[in-house]
């Protein structure tokens, strides 16, 4: 999203220009940053409150297969083997990617990200360290607040030597790391590029076999007895993980992702109607020098 420069509140512009810095760094991290030549210039933040008005297909969508095929995302159909046509019997099932959920999430995140970046740019920052991102429900009306904050830093004595005259200001780099952990990243030969976060959402409308198995009705006429794998759920769960990982991977362009964190949540929207969401975040870093092999680690026992 392109955010106009005047979007930052006037009060925020005045505050950021006042001459004293603010930072979210602990004293230890603050000291480590100074050692690296990084000087904090301000605690920068970005917010975006998104209303989730069109969340799902709703009950009207059910029974219109294959719904998600037109969206161009992942879709997989499951057909009942029993040839039964009753209102109670789920004669088909479908897993599909909810692209509109992912788009809405991306819009909210990108807005908050751009606003935080804009604040950093207005301070003339080279980068943002110790980024914390959060999504919280703002009220009970389907509003989700995206909040990104971090400490904008400048590289000591860098501006005069590094930026050519009339050059467009580059986007500040960002990382979830701060302090000694960031120092180790540099020593390992990596330079931070940006934080990376992405989500994937897969909806599962179960068909008869999945429903029988989830309810424990493993009976011969359901073609299942004893214990067996619940393929439709396994497909949905694996897909929601694969989708988010491949999306993040495609955004790296040859860089590496460090300290990745993969979260997956599941909720039952209604009987036989499940939603799986995955979120993967991490630090995109770029190698700037060849790795210098460390010595073999030496074990120590602390006597204190």
């Amino acid at each position, binding site marked *: 999203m392109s955010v106009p420069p005047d979007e930052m509140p006037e009060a925020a512009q005045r505050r950021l220009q006042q001459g004293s810095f603010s930072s*979210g760094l*602990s004293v*230890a*991290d603050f*000291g*480590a940053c100074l*050692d*690296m*030549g*990084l000087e904090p210039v301000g605690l920068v933040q970005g917010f975006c409150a998104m209303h989730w008005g069109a969340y799902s297909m709703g009950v009207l969508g059910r029974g219109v297969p294959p719904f998600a095929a037109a969206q161009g995302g992942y879709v997989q159909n499951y057909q009942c083997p029993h040839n039964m046509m009753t209102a109670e019997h789920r004669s088909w099932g479908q897993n599909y990617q909810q692209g509109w959920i992912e788009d809405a999430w991306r819009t909210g995140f990108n807005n908050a990200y751009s606003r935080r970046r804009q604040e950093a740019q207005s301070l003339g920052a*080279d980068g943002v360290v*110790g980024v914390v991102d959060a999504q919280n429900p703002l009220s009970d009306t389907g509003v989700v607040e995206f909040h990104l904050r971090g400490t904008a830093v400048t590289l*000591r004595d*860098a501006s005069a*030597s590094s930026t050519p005259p009339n050059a467009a200001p580059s986007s500040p780099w960002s990382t*979830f*790391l*701060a*302090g000694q*952990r960031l*120092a*180790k*990243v540099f*020593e*390992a030969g990596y*330079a931070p590029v940006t934080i990376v976060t992405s989500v994937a959402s897969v909806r599962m409308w179960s068909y008869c076999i999945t429903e029988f*198995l*989830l*309810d*424990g*009705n*493993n009976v011969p006429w359901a073609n299942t*007895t004893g*214990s*067996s*794998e*619940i393929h439709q759920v396994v497909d949905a*769960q*694996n897909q929601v*993980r694969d989708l988010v*990982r491949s999306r993040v991977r495609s955004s790296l*362009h*040859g*860089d*590496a*992702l*460090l*300290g*990745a964190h*993969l979260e*997956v949540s599941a909720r039952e929207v209604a009987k036989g109607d499940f939603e799986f969401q995955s979120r993967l975040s*991490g630090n995109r870093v770029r*190698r700037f020098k060849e790795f210098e*092999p460390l*010595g073999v*680690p*030496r*074990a*120590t026992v*602390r006597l204190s």
Partner: protein
Amino acid sequence: MTSAATPPGPSLSNQVRRALLEPVIPTDTTTSTTSDLSIDEELNLRSIGWEPVELVSAVSLQSIPYGFWNWGQGEIEVASRAHAAAFLSATTRLVREAGAAGAHGVVGVHIDRAVHPTFVEVSLVGTAVRPVDRSQRLSRGVFASDLSARDFTMLMVAGWEPLGLASGASFVFAPRRSMSSTLQQQTQNVELTNFTEAMYSARESAMQRMQEMAIDMHGAGVVDVTVHEGPMAFASHAVGFVAVGTVVRLAASAHQSIQPTAVVSLDDPTVAFDAQTLA
């Protein structure tokens, strides 16, 4: 474990300047790597000539027919079998995915397990790793291990190698007491031997299964075994015991002593440089 590498010195700020002022654009955009390792873990891994390749994950759900939890005798075999099948299926997928990424193994596998009345769910996430020297051939199958990269490094330095994840699970009925015993014990402080014996029975079966898996992998033993045991929340007379660990074997001709160095920290009790701002 500490590293014998050169500690951060006065050149740190110069390295930071170089990293930020002389950006290198990757020439090969197809070689991205992803990992959930911390920077410390990656440094440990690289110190023994290994590197992360890709974040891998796998899931399996196995159904349990309704009605097996509340009445019966002895082991609830269908639940034990479902757990074993879910674990095996998820591990197989994880290892296959790592193999497809060109890795020799998966370290730091996070294991999420949940036993529900009608199904068992196992989900695994870890980082696929391989030797930096690509000419090294895989001498055995791709392994999966719940050891952290630090523990994996320590294990390799000591001359051992991981072979895979082993798991054993057993769910057993605690037989119901007779009416007379129940009434008799109502006002007594006594051991309920039916529950104690059920726990022992579940423990033996689960540990036996885990050890059999280790033997099948030609392992010498299982390290870092974690145990989950107790009553099943949804079935008042069933107890469960699950053991999971990493199968290892000696790769060198003999165990290499790591000979830890004793250190006395002169720091204050306050932890220095703990990154408090990390999410």
